[in-house]
């Protein structure tokens, strides 16, 4: 029993350290690299406005566009690594923000509903729940063959329950031999267990896959 607890503590420590490092890189990209690129863009736009030569103006416009694309990519990369809304606004707004990015990346529409007042969750727990949802959605994009996902948040005084249903092709876990996929599913369950929650996965061929995540709030 003690050995299990020690192993769980080690896993938690590794995950927390990784999350801290990811957050640092994300912030550095957003506040450092992103801000510097923005300054370069402003400078280029100033030079463009004060140049009369059409050829040079056009060249500077293209350079500005390239910088804009790079800023956009840096911002997306930073948000992908660590969503700032998670710390500032909470789990639900962070999830909604991620879903916007998810739909424009994979073309899959995610319908999100929330019942009950959103409760404050410690950052360590909310990042774990966010990562499990993120893994579930990425798996859907990879394997489910679907255009529509439904996500439900139910907030009660004692518990948060999130269900994700993909209406996709489904799978039979016992016949699944993609080791990466199985490890991913096991990691989702383990990550929830480490914060005292649970993750249940059920799937039916032709009907889709459902994931239920629950987290005690007291």
């Amino acid at each position, binding site marked *: 029993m003690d050995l299990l607890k020690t192993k769980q503590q080690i896993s938690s420590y590794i995950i927390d350290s990784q999350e801290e490092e990811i957050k640092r890189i994300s912030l550095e990209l957003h506040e450092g690299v992103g801000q510097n690129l923005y300054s370069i863009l402003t400078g280029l736009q100033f030079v463009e406005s004060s140049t009369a030569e059409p050829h040079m103006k056009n060249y500077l416009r*293209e350079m500005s566009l390239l910088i804009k694309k790079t800023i956009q990519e840096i911002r*997306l990369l930073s948000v992908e690594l660590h969503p700032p809304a998670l710390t500032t606004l909470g789990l639900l707004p962070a999830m909604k923000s991620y879903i916007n990015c998810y739909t424009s990346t*994979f*073309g899959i529409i995610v319908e999100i509903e929330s019942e009950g007042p959103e409760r404050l969750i410690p950052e360590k727990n909310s990042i774990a729940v966010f990562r499990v949802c993120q893994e579930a959605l990425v798996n859907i994009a*990879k394997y489910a063959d679907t255009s529509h996902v439904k996500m439900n948040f139910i907030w009660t005084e004692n518990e948060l329950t999130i269900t994700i249903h993909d209406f996709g092709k489904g799978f039979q876990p016992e016949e699944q031999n993609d080791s990466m996929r199985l490890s991913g599913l096991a990691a989702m369950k383990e990550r929830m267990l480490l914060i005292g929650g649970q993750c249940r996965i059920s799937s039916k061929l032709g009907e889709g896959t459902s994931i239920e995540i629950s987290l005690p709030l007291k």
Partner: protein
Amino acid sequence: MSEIKELQAVRKVCDQLKETLACDFVGLAIQNQAGPDVRWHYASGNLNDKYKRITVRFGKGVAGKIISSGTPMMITHFPQGIVGKVTDYPIMLAEKLVSTYAVPLFFNAVPKGVLLVGKREKYIFSAQEQEKVFKSSLELEQMLKEHIL
């Protein structure tokens, strides 16, 4: 820009290319007039409408890499041998493509679009087939140059 898919001539080039190469999918991605976003404006042989909602990430996936590098790209057996993650290739996932060949579309000497052909099986596009895709891309550049800033 949204009316690109309405242009008969553009549709004809894409549909003909799909028929000539006997491929499963042809897609045309173009940079939006406002802002740096690149989106799929027309597709032939698509399995669903996901392509309409996909915004191409700069430097990622097939289209993103072509726009950032300005050079053609071929994938013969997705996801084997790809650079980056499977999820960096959303059009391959959305359309279940296994092989693809794609070329850039240049406007004012800058890559601002992508013409992509794909099959849902492993395949190596021959030099002749690559040449056909290239010729179609030149036709599309001519047709679309007035629509691109």
